């Protein structure tokens, strides 16, 4: 395997001083699905816009297919497809015309573009509405058309910036299936997401990104295994103070066969190697410390725990797509600057 994307010490500082991407290094191998998992504002979109040659970097190096994105942008553009966080379709053109336009801009002949567009329209379930104005499409249809546009020229590497944000569960599943098929057919996929289950299901490897920094990289299972065998989540009574939470954390700090406890709100997450054996000890210890337990749950670690462990916070998931159109545009403008 060779690195299709190779990023070292990438930094992006916006004119207002925001360090949106702060010394990020990673690579994406040919043939894999690689993901950036992180909350809104983590720097995912900035990073992806630099890689697809839409935004200049402040410092560092970024190579796609061996080409420097800042020195050889057109070589990079020939290799990639890109779907932005905000849908980019021409509402005055039909679905088919939108696809063909992208194909033509990528150097396809009219005939090739038409064949390819028809195939994608079918896969995306848009064949029936192919000749309707894209402006009349529903949100889900627009997103599917947008994803199709990124694929029309058969790129080796596809960048998808939050491809399923704002989609209904059914459509989300359809997009996932298609991305998996696409990957099986040989395309490398780089996606960003704020959905744990999406990263878990699709990504061979992922990087967790928060406040512009990569805090962890690995396979979903590897990252979860780092946390430990299982996670015990202890929730305290509603009315307990900070002091009680600290007391509980202290009591669990050196618990045998367990990782580091992480407190969040009134809950403490503790990764344990063998919950079956240590559960009664754990309860006794909390009891001795005078901590009253409201609820105790046992789970295998999720990426949420991974995120919590590395950032000390739960993922802050916001539904960007449910925001009204105008604020989406404002957000885009901020990004574009």
């Amino acid at each position, binding site marked *: 395997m060779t690195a299709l994307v190779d990023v070292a010490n990438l930094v992006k500082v916006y004119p207002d001083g925001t360090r949106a991407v702060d010394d990020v290094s990673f690579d994406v191998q040919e043939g894999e699905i690689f993901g950036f998992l992180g909350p809104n504002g983590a720097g995912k979109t900035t990073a992806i816009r630099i890689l697809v040659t839409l935004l200049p970097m402040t410092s560092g190096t970024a190579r796609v297919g061996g080409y420097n994105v800042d020195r050889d942008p057109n070589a990079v553009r020939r290799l990639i497809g890109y779907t932005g966080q905000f849908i*980019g379709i021409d509402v005055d053109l039909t679905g088919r015309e939108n696809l063909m336009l992208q194909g033509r801009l*990528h150097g396809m002949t009219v005939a090739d573009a038409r064949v390819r567009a028809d195939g994608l329209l079918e896969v995306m379930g848009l064949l029936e509405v192919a000749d309707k104005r894209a402006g009349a499409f529903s949100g889900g249809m627009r997103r599917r058309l947008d994803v199709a546009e990124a694929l029309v020229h058969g790129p080796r590497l596809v960048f998808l910036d939050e491809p399923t944000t704002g989609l209904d569960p059914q459509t989300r599943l359809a997009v996932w299936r298609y991305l998996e098929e696409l990957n099986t057919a040989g395309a490398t996929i780089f996606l960003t997401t704020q959905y744990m289950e999406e990263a878990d299901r699709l990504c061979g490897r992922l990087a967790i990104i928060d406040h512009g920094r990569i805090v962890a990289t690995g396979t979903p299972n590897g990252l979860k295994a780092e946390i430990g065998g299982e996670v015990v989540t202890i929730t305290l009574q509603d009315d307990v103070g900070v002091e009680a939470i600290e007391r509980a954390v202290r009591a669990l700090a050196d618990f045998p066969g367990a990782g580091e406890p992480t407190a969040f709100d009134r809950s403490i997450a503790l990764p344990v190697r063998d919950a079956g054996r240590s559960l009664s000890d754990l309860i006794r210890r909390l009891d001795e410390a005078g901590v009253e337990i409201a609820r105790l749950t046992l789970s295998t670690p999720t990426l949420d725990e991974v995120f919590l462990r590395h950032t000390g916070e739960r993922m802050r998931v916001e539904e960007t797509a449910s925001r009204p159109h105008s604020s989406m545009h404002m957000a885009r403008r901020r990004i574009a600057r």
Partner: protein
Amino acid sequence: MITESIIIFQRNLKKIVRIPMLLFFSLFQPMLWLLLFTQIFQKMGDFPQFRAQGFSSYLQFFAPSVLTMTVLTSAFQSGMGMVTDLEQGMLDKFLISPIHRSSVLLGKVLADATRMLLQGVLVLVVALLMGARIHTGFVGFIVMLAVAALFGVAWAGLSNIVALRTRNSEMTMMVGILLTFPLLFLSTSMMPTALLPSWLETVTRFNPVSYVIDTGRAFMNFRYDWTQLGKTLAVIAITGALTLSGATRAFRKATS
């Protein structure tokens, strides 16, 4: 680059054809002027002082002004289209493809020119139906249209500068409206040069709009005035060089 420009030109053209409203939206005001102003000032066409300038009617005098006004109004639609492309993410789609950057602007300018030609034809045809007559015939018709469209393209450059700097379609429209009327009033559009107060006469000489109108007027009323045409083309070239290079700069800045 030529193929790419043509692809983008075709796309922009499709948008124009698909929403004919846009074509007529900017035609509404010029048509109103053409129909009503020529009525209001009809009798002025009979004043001896006016007659002495060689115009057989106010319509004969005023039609080239309306043609110019049409392209001025139309030019600012160009910037508004640019804002839409920015907002809808279409510009990103263009920029992500391996095309020459300038073909995005070139394709747009070509489509703008086509729209202006179409609108210009409609305005001139209405004027002819109202009884206007082009002294130099078909050649004059083509010269008038071409000069108007060329000037419109130069002016569209300015609109795109505003659009790319503000990224706001209301602002782009406002600037367009605010600039169009002073430019028209401070030109030879309403009165023959000889009948203007001398300060205004001086101002009109520095207004590119006057040159465009005077050329149309010469070909419509008098003769094949190649000297006037040459002067006007030079003025348009200077204006266009300024606005279009500014638009290219603004475009680079907005897309990097």
